[in-house]
């Protein structure tokens, strides 16, 4: 059913349609509306059987999901930002144990300085945690990815994060097609794990593993993630057949098949980029966009196929590896090994700074006219003057100094 609905409400409805048996939740902006809506459904008896746990922390939330999943229950939680860091230890545990937990990440910046707005620092910090990471470009895709995520997690026995931009998507009202219960039930079979904690057939889970077998257990996670590359494509194809719309998959191409310059991005900024691409195409510029829907596992072959013909690749990402540069860009470079494409690392949208169509157009203008050094890290719409002024100070509380400078205006 198509309705004008907030992203969080839509995702909560989609999660409920997947019949989770245990939901653990600890509040953190901008994830709150999702778990609040799920609480309402459980309290009204509209989501049964389901236990809703108000835990004491994100660490507790993921730990409760681990216990529930080990008993064979479909387990779900949602978090963001500091919350994902606080549960980091449990994230690695869930993936190591092969537990198919699904978690929404309402992407938000990580402090310090504390900041509640959107970027991808939180999910990116856990890119090597063994979780599959899917990024939604729209609220419709966020809904669809959740339905696919439970199926994917349970098929490959790995946990899945569905990442959606905090506020930009979670708090945005837009038309979303919500599937029916019958549709979801037909697409997502009951969770029937092969091994669970059961007194009738006692198993030990979580044993200590020494040097003689540790590497093999870890490699298993990697092999399963690589297998997931095929499964994600299959599930996305089946989803399209069952629901009549394309969603998910590994990468999404937009007017890029013949483009000389291609912008690569994750999440909701793809909409803005596509608008900029349309304008430039109208002006006769050969540009396109490629969205990475699945960041972990890294779809190396698909990225190479989608970008291999390009002369210039601009990776516009909402997080960066301090002391190095772009994170997605490094992965893209790996995929383009041996090909002539020039890759630009561009970091933007940090801490909620809007990436506008105008700034994307300015960026592409710089790229097309060779004003950007492809070897350098570029920060989109950055006020270097403010950075410079703070660098000149001998010491001090950086965030407070910079805010004071900003209020005082240009020097």
């Amino acid at each position, binding site marked *: 059913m198509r309705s004008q609905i907030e992203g969080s409400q839509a995702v909560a409805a989609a999660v409920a349609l997947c019949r989770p*048996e*245990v939901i*653990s939740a600890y509040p953190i902006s901008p994830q709150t509306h999702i778990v609040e809506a799920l609480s309402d459904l459980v309290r009204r008896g509209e989501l049964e*059987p*389901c*236990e809703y*746990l*108000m*835990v*004491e*922390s994100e*660490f*507790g939330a993921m*730990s*409760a*999901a*681990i*216990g*529930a*999943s*080990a*008993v*064979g*229950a479909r*387990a779900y939680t949602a978090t963001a930002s500091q919350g994902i860091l606080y549960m980091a*230890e*449990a994230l690695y*545990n869930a993936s190591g*144990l092969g537990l198919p937990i699904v978690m929404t990440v309402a992407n938000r910046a990580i402090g310090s300085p504390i900041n509640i707005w959107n970027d991808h620092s939180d999910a990116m910090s856990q890119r090597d945690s063994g979780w599959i990471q899917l990024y939604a470009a729209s609220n419709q895709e966020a809904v669809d990815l959740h339905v696919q995520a439970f199926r994917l997690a349970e098929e490959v026995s790995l946990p899945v994060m569905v990442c959606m931009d905090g506020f930009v998507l979670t708090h945005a009202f837009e038309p979303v097609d919500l599937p029916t219960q019958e549709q979801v039930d037909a697409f997502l079979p009951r969770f029937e794990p092969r091994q669970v*904690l*059961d*007194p009738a*057939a*006692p*198993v*030990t*889970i*979580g*044993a*200590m*593993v*020494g040097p003689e*077998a540790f590497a093999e257990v870890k490699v298993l996670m990697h092999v399963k993630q690589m297998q997931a590359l095929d499964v994600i494509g299959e599930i996305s194809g089946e989803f399209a057949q069952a629901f009549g719309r394309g969603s998910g998959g590994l990468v999404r191409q937009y007017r890029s098949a013949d483009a000389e310059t291609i912008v690569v991005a994750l999440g909701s900024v793809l909409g803005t980029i596509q608008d900029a691409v349309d304008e430039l195409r109208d002006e006769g510029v050969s540009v396109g966009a490629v969205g990475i829907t699945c960041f972990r596992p890294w779809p190396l072959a698909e990225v190479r196929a989608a970008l291999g013909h390009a002369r210039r690749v601009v990776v516009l990402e909402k997080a960066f590896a301090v002391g190095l540069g772009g994170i997605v860009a490094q992965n893209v470079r790996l995929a383009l090994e041996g090909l002539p494409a020039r890759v630009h690392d561009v970091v933007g949208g940090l801490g909620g700074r809007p990436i506008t169509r105008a700034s994307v157009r300015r960026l592409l203008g710089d790229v097309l006219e060779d004003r950007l050094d492809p070897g350098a890290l570029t920060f989109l719409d950055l006020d270097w003057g403010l950075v410079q002024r703070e660098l000149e100070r001998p010491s001090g509380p950086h965030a407070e100094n910079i805010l004071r400078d900003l209020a005082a205006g240009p020097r």
Partner: protein
Amino acid sequence: MPRQKIKLYQVGSFAVGNRLLDPDDRTVQARSERSNTLTSGHRACQGCGEALGARYVLDAAMRATGDQVIVANATGCLEVFSTPYPESSWQLPWIHSLFGNAPAVATGIAAALKAKGRTDVRVVGQGGDGGTLDIGFACLSGMFERNDDVLYVCYDNEAYMNTGVQRSSATPPAARTANTKPVGFEPGNVFGQGKNAPLIALAHEIPYVATATVADLHDLEQKVERAMELHGARYLHVLVPCPLGWGAAACDTIRLARLAVETGLFPVFEAEHGEVTAVSTIRRQAPVEEYLRPQRRFAHLFGVPGRPDVVERIQAGADRNIRRFGLLAEEEE
């Protein structure tokens, strides 16, 4: 709280030997149908109080529930010595996740069982004093306040034994550990620190809180049985001497646990919904020196010149427990 009617006892406590009891009252371990949940072959040290305690607790829980128990175990000695991959000493469904999350994992298990309608299956969370009182305390308190249907058992050996005997918030004053060595002006662990987990559990007003030791295994079993009769959050704090960490002889594990009770240093009590319902009384209070001397972690108190002042402070703490909990039995006529 002597549950046994029998009045033959040779020790300072009211503990009685198994053979003096009616067959029905004898320990689960004396029965051929005992479940051996922690079976032989594990790698605990000789004289390990934790292995003994865990075996009695879980076999009693199995008996009380008709073998319907799932265990969530914190990281620590108990986890390491019982599950060196690919071996496992556990003959019941058992999961180890992390050091600080056993109560939350147990919560998740209980929630899943409830959602699945498996109310016949019961959940036990367990860990050492570090995993319970320190790193796992937030998860434990959360499990308590939500009144989740979990029995959590803390096996308290008063330090981080698995990592090499470092101080925890359960380490007693003056005790030597790897990071409270008998050097400097205040040798050993300092006074005025640490926390009393059973009393904090009590303050949550959960259905059941009890303390026990491996010196009185009947009492321990009966407390597990009582805990399994109840639903909601339950907490059992078991003192389990550690020969390695305490610097004591392996054959002294039971004796030291008994002396911890008889000195008044470790009050044994039972509480329901925030009210203390019973205390295990002592026939004759033993001086703390009897308890401290056999343990090398307190050796610095008894050298030359020794620290009689510190022993006196420890004695004062024991005396306070005796008064506070009413631990000394009234003389019978």
